[in-house]
């Protein structure tokens, strides 16, 4: 069964304190791995797509990496505005759709 597990469930950082969020996955075949950011009461906002092991993508203070079993979202020198829930999702290869299978997310709080 395709599954996504994110850790930690919650993370509290001081402003400027870098850290990483983990996304472990099992999938029969991976079409893509996606990271989204979700603010309270809002829809997920697309951040990155990774397609193959070794791939990396960056956007401002965020960098996402991918291996054959997990992905990391590295946050460098975070600011309070980076506080949100970060969701990881996999898109299985094959099948009729591009459906996403999500983890439960990591709730990040960055304190000034």
């Amino acid at each position, binding site marked *: 069964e395709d599954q*996504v597990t994110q850790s930690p469930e919650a993370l509290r950082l001081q402003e400027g304190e870098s850290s990483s969020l983990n996304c472990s996955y099992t999938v029969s075949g991976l*079409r*893509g791995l*996606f990271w*989204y950011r979700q603010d309270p*009461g*809002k*829809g*997920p*906002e*697309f951040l990155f*797509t990774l397609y193959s092991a070794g791939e990396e993508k960056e956007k401002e203070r965020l960098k996402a990496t991918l291996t054959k079993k997990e992905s990391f979202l590295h946050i460098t020198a975070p600011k309070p505005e980076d506080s949100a829930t970060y*969701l990881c*999702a996999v*898109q299985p290869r094959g*099948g*009729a*759709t*591009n*459906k*996403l*299978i*999500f*983890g*439960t*997310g990591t709730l990040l709080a960055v304190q000034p």
Partner: protein
Amino acid sequence: DAGVTQSPTHLIKTRGQQVTLRCSPKSGHDTVSWYQQALGQGPQFIFQYYEEEERQRGNFPDRFSGHQFPNYSSELNVNALLLGDSALYLCASSYQETQYFGPGTRLLVL
């Protein structure tokens, strides 16, 4: 470019009632997916529509049904509402792999 839009933003219903949620995709997107997100959980795939047909359904009962119109907009219908249907309902549109989400409709069933 307006992103994905959903209506209404909030809704309160009682058990046994029926509800219809609406979604307009991003310009140029032809595929619409619906997800249910319970509090503290990740979104769960309900179904996807393409060319006005349901292409795949997640693990949701037949009380959940949908429709896609020729202009690619979509509706999600839920019949015989249960307390457990209370959640944030998300619509996502796509043209290829990447799905873009709307703001969601918060449904509360009393």
